[in-house]
């Protein structure tokens, strides 16, 4: 060490600037918080914040879980369990012929790919139109 007490300073200067993560202190955020609160009051004339329903989120989420469970159990029974059940059993009445076990997922997958492709095409066309307008 060339200078006594320079260790701490030397360490700081050798740190690459990309490692330093900028943080906002409360004093820097406070003036903007007032700004946001004013905008909030302008949004809702009653003065109370709009309520966010956890209800619909829960309903949608649980609905998705139920749908996935139903599909999973039906498909598992269809593909894995039916071949081991006697062909004269009454349960075979509730399931389609076995060829559909591959055909239906394949068709659904192709439809999904089609929709994704159409969506991408629409977005790209919209982007091209916007850039043409700006030009």
């Amino acid at each position, binding site marked *: 060490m060339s200078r006594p007490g320079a260790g701490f300073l030397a360490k700081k200067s050798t740190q690459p600037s990309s490692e330093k993560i900028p943080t906002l202190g409360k004093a820097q955020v406070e003036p903007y918080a007032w700004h946001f609160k004013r905008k*909030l009051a302008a949004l809702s004339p009653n003065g109370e914040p709009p309520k966010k329903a956890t209800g619909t989120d829960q309903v949608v*989420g649980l609905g*998705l*879980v139920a749908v*996935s469970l139903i599909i999973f159990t039906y*498909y598992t029974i269809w*593909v894995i369990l039916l071949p081991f059940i006697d062909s004269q059993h009454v349960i075979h009445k509730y399931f389609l012929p076995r060829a559909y*076990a591959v055909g239906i997922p394949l068709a659904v997958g192709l439809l999904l790919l089609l929709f994704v492709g159409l969506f991408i095409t629409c977005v790209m066309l919209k982007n091209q139109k916007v850039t043409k307008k700006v030009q």
Partner: protein
Amino acid sequence: MTKLAQWLWGLALLGSTWAALTMGPTLGLELPLTCREVLWPLPAYLLVTIGCFALGTVGYRVATFHDCEDAALELQTQIQEARADLARKGLRF
């Protein structure tokens, strides 16, 4: 070996095993009929199972996610401000 290479390797291994077992009877390998019946839709079954698992996980996370009302409001105000600002500067939405 990269992750992609590992996944492709595993898929190729499973795929070749399945192909060998399903086309076995044509080459002389004898399997009971029920096993062959279960075996040939197996790739489609695995795909559907993975899809169901993904859907179920997404649904569960949507149902159990905690709402942050303040953050949502702040975000909405910020979006409106940014929209107004950019529209003033000439960006078209």
